């Protein structure tokens, strides 16, 4: 396969088109357009034939690795398979050909979809109502923290500025709370890897605005004391934020609303199976408990008899959080997923996600160090600390080694409370054969670490790009082609 950039394949004057002869006068451009708007030199764009451009894009797609190419157990990021029917539904012209400024009566179907999706997500999470506007998880978190702010403003309690975040939290949690004007205090994990209720009690001072939790946590562990934690936080006058990144482990089993949470964001591109790659487009709907409904963003979609309409009439609303109504095509795909799966299907998806993770955990824990040795939820964390000390093979070497077997590596070095962490999340759709192949591969890599560690230091050998210099990739990345 040619590794030439399309710019390097270019030859001046080569084209993939032929225009018909000009049938209008040929006037110089500079006479038609103000010279201040014209380029002084011709831009350097690749000039290639049609077949070359096809090979270029086809080559790029083959060098890509996605869920449609192989196993992708990326912990925390939840790379689930996206059923293709979602794409079919998302491509219906009734959805793709509408404009956000069309009149309400001409987009009743779309408004109904927003209304029904919000209703379904509220039911799944045990919340009162929500907004589908946020474009991604972190945007949802920011929206949620603005809701916290609005709630305390209304209650004249703006002295509540402290948000508690566990050490294992997603990095976006403290970042979102900080941007929304709160300051962060970390909660320590106890020896079980769970929130330490004892240290939490001491941190619940009268300036506490609330707590941000992921449950199950980023360690793949269910916070068993959540009811007690919720009680303590509410008693102290605070609110509870649920990071829905791991909601895929508990659908149909337990609801954040029933655990006592006041706000949740969902990552539709994770739990609800919409595409994830290339950084999006994502969707991070926010659902809230009764006490925060009045503060939700405008417009809200409401139903009056048989008609749906956009309601802007909300005095306490935090306002818009998106130009229009969010990443609409993503919402359509997520809704398609919800209704094709149904409540039983969603419950099964969570059950299989947890079962698959526990299967891998049990098969691997004899060879690799399982950091918290207990039943996991949808993901679990292994540590390569011992292997690094004894064999000189780090989590990074194992990850690179997996690439040669056609497996995407798990998440490594996160969560940071586990040294040499490898966070594995197989998701629900993988067959036992695929899981067994992964186990076999991991055991082979372990054997290689003992017999032939040099080979792992040099991995990957079979990928289009071999091991990159991570330091130079950060410090002096070459992101641009320059003409000689």
């Amino acid at each position, binding site marked *: 396969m040619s590794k030439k950039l399309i710019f390097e394949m270019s030859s001046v004057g080569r084209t993939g088109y032929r225009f018909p002869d000009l049938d209008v006068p040929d006037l110089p451009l500079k006479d038609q357009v103000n010279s201040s708007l014209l380029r002084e030199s011709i831009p350097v764009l690749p000039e290639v034939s049609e077949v070359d451009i096809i090979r270029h894009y086809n080559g790029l797609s083959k060098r890509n690795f996605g869920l449609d190419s192989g196993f992708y157990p990326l912990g925390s990021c939840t790379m689930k398979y996206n059923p293709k029917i979602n794409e079919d539904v998302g491509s219906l012209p009734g959805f793709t050909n509408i404009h956000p400024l069309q009149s309400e009566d001409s987009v009743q179907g779309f408004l109904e979809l927003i209304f029904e999706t919000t209703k379904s997500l509220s039911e799944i999470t045990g919340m009162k109502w929500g907004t589908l506007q946020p474009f991604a998880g972190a945007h949802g978190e920011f929206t949620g923290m603005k809701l916290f702010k609005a709630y305390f403003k209304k209650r004249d309690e703006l002295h509540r500025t402290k948000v508690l975040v566990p050490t294992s939290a997603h*990095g976006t949690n403290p970042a979102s709370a900080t941007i929304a004007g709160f300051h962060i205090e970390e909660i320590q994990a106890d020896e079980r890897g769970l929130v330490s209720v004892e240290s939490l009690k001491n941190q619940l001072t009268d300036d506490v605005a609330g707590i941000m939790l992921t449950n199950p946590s980023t360690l793949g562990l269910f916070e068993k004391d959540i009811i007690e934690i919720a009680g303590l936080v509410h008693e102290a006058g605070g609110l509870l934020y649920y990071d829905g990144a791991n909601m895929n482990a508990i659908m149909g089993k337990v609801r954040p609303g029933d655990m006592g949470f006041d706000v949740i964001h969902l990552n539709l591109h994770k739990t609800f199976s919409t595409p994830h790659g290339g950084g999006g487009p994502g969707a991070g709907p926010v659902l809230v408990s009764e006490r925060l409904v009045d503060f939700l963003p405008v417009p809200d979609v409401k139903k009056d008899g048989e008609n749906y309409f956009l309601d802007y009439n909300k005095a306490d609303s935090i306002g818009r959080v998106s130009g229009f109504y969010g990443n609409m095509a993503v919402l359509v795909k997520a809704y398609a997923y919800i209704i094709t799966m149904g409540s039983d299907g969603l419950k099964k998806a969570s059950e299989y996600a947890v079962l698959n993770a526990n299967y891998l955990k049990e098969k691997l824990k004899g060879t690799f160090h399982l950091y918290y040795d207990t039943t996991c939820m949808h993901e679990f964390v292994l540590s390569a600390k011992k292997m690094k000390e004894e064999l000189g093979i780090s989590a*990074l070497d194992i990850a690179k080694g997996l690439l040669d077997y056609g497996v995407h590596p798990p998440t*490594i*070095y*996160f969560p*940071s409370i586990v*040294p040499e962490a490898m966070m594995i999340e197989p998701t629900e759709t993988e067959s036992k054969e695929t899981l067994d192949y992964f186990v076999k591969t991991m055991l082979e890599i372990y054997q290689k670490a003992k017999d032939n560690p040099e080979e792992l230091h040099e991995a990957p050998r079979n990928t289009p790009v071999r091991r990159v210099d*991570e*330091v130079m990739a*950060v*410090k002096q990345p070459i992101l641009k082609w320059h003409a000689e």
Partner: protein
Amino acid sequence: MNIPGDLKYTEGHEWVRVEGNVAYVGISDHAQHELGDIVYVELPEIDTEIDAKEEATNIESVKAAAPVYSPVSGKIVEVNEDLEDSSELINSDAYGSYIFAVEMSDKSELDSLMDADAYKEFLEKE
């Protein structure tokens, strides 16, 4: 494990070298080893007032971003500008590469830090 005897240490793996009233702060050899190749050191601003245990700055490695806490209270009076272009100096010489220096407002805070033996013991337990 390289733990020089003339320095003080924190549980967050910072080291402190005292020169008169000024405390020079860096991260320990153990810390640089755990972080791996360091690619960026954010330098705090000179004249910033800082409390003991307050986050002074951040270090980024190929694996993670990690906060560096000030072991003592006072005012930041110097930063190691060499690290701006050569963050890898911390990897090659953790104790020769201070990150920032604090003019101490309360020297007695040094008493609560660990000496080399205590830090060694702390690392073994961790």
